[in-house]
């Protein structure tokens, strides 16, 4: 039986990937970012999950507005790295998990989630920007140490799904994972945020006070977050910061008993970069955690 052993919330702004590629590890302007991810990378290196279920959003790269999905599940064995307009970022292609992903497709559709499915499409920084921080040795090794099941969420073109629907998607994903017969250890990842706005005269908006409150509520009281409206998220965290509803999907896939064991926050420029690590109580007793 597959089980979820923990969760990660993380920003996915492209700058994170750029800082990694340019090896800014020792640049004083970037040290806080790298430091913030160390504990998470260590935890992943220790737990060695088989699969990351990755709630992320496309940035008008893989999908265009002539056909835009609300939720799209990647079911193929591999996903190339997308060219986002500057050539392909030198990271390994993403390895899928068709067995689990197809099972999830059947389970989610029967559970009344009207997901799209996609295969073999290139994926953009929505996945690969945080991925090099989570699995920092993969570029050198030439392969990611685990598989991904990508779940794309529309946060670009309104109407976007409600915060509550995202949380419910996470809950349905938990049911789907737990009904998969193979013995797999799974970590759920929710990406995006925190506060930022990238359009109009309000661009450059941030709100650290709200970000801190969000980082608290996402562990302690996710229902306070699911009862907020998209307009509230846009007002408090900026129109683009409202993409944190993808963290709610991650949180919905965790048990109520999951504990936040690490967090980090850094706001150098326009987007608040945050990472938070959640562990399930059962994770300590899991197969590989000897």
């Amino acid at each position, binding site marked *: 039986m597959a089980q979820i052993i923990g969760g990660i919330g993380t920003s996915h702004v492209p*700058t994170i990937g750029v800082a990694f590629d340019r090896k800014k590890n020792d640049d004083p*302007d*970037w040290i806080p970012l790298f430091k913030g991810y160390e504990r998470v990378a260590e935890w992943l290196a220790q737990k060695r999950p088989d699969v990351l279920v990755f709630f992320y959003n496309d*940035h*008008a*790269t893989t999908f*265009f*507005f*002539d056909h835009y999905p609300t939720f799209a599940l990647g079911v193929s064995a591999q996903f190339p790295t*997308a*060219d*986002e*307009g*500057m*050539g392909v970022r030198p990271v390994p292609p993403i390895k899928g998990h068709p067995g689990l992903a197809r099972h999830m497709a059947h389970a989610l559709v029967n559970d009344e989630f009207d997901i799209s499915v996609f295969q073999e499409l290139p994926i953009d920084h929505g996945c690969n920007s945080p991925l090099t921080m989570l699995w920092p040795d993969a570029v050198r090794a030439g392969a990611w140490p685990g598989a991904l099941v990508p779940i794309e969420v529309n946060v*670009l*073109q*309104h*109407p976007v799904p*409600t915060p509550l629907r995202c949380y419910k998607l996470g809950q349905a994903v938990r049911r789907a994972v737990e009904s998969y017969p193979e013995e797999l250890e799974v970590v759920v990842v929710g990406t995006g945020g925190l506060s930022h*706005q*990238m*359009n*109009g*005269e*309000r*661009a*450059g908006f941030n709100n650290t006070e709200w970000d801190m409150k969000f980082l608290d509520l996402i562990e302690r009281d996710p229902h306070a977050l699911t009862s907020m*409206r*998209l*307009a509230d998220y*846009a*007002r408090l965290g900026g*129109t*683009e910061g409202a993409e944190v509803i993808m963290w709610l999907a991650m949180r919905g896939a965790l048990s109520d008993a999951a504990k936040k064991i690490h967090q980090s926050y850094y*706001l*150098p*420029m*326009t987007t608040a970069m945050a990472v938070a690590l959640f562990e399930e109580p059962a994770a300590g007793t899991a197969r590989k955690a000897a």
Partner: protein
Amino acid sequence: MNPQLEGIESLSGTYLFDLERSAKALRLNRFLHDFIHPEKRELFKQNPEAAFEAAGLSEEEREMVRNLDWRALIRYGASFFTLEKLGRLSGVSNPAMVAHMRGETLEEFLKTRNVPGAR
């Protein structure tokens, strides 16, 4: 009215990308999205007017792209995420795009940031 979005019009300087904007600017956004293809980037770099023509952009749309007028493009209906591709192609950073949308110089904008060197 979408109850999830009620009140968002009170956020001044905000242009929510929705189906209405998407429909209005579909051609423009497709033009910008297509920069994911190296040959489209090449055409734009070599001969922007031919690229405009092939994409069927209106004169208004062409003029905004020629001028890299981020503020006008966003107001018109461009998605920031298709626009970002034009930014990269034109060597304009996100902070510079953001500064322009705010009506500030890059220097002015950087002064408002916590770590002006982190870009």
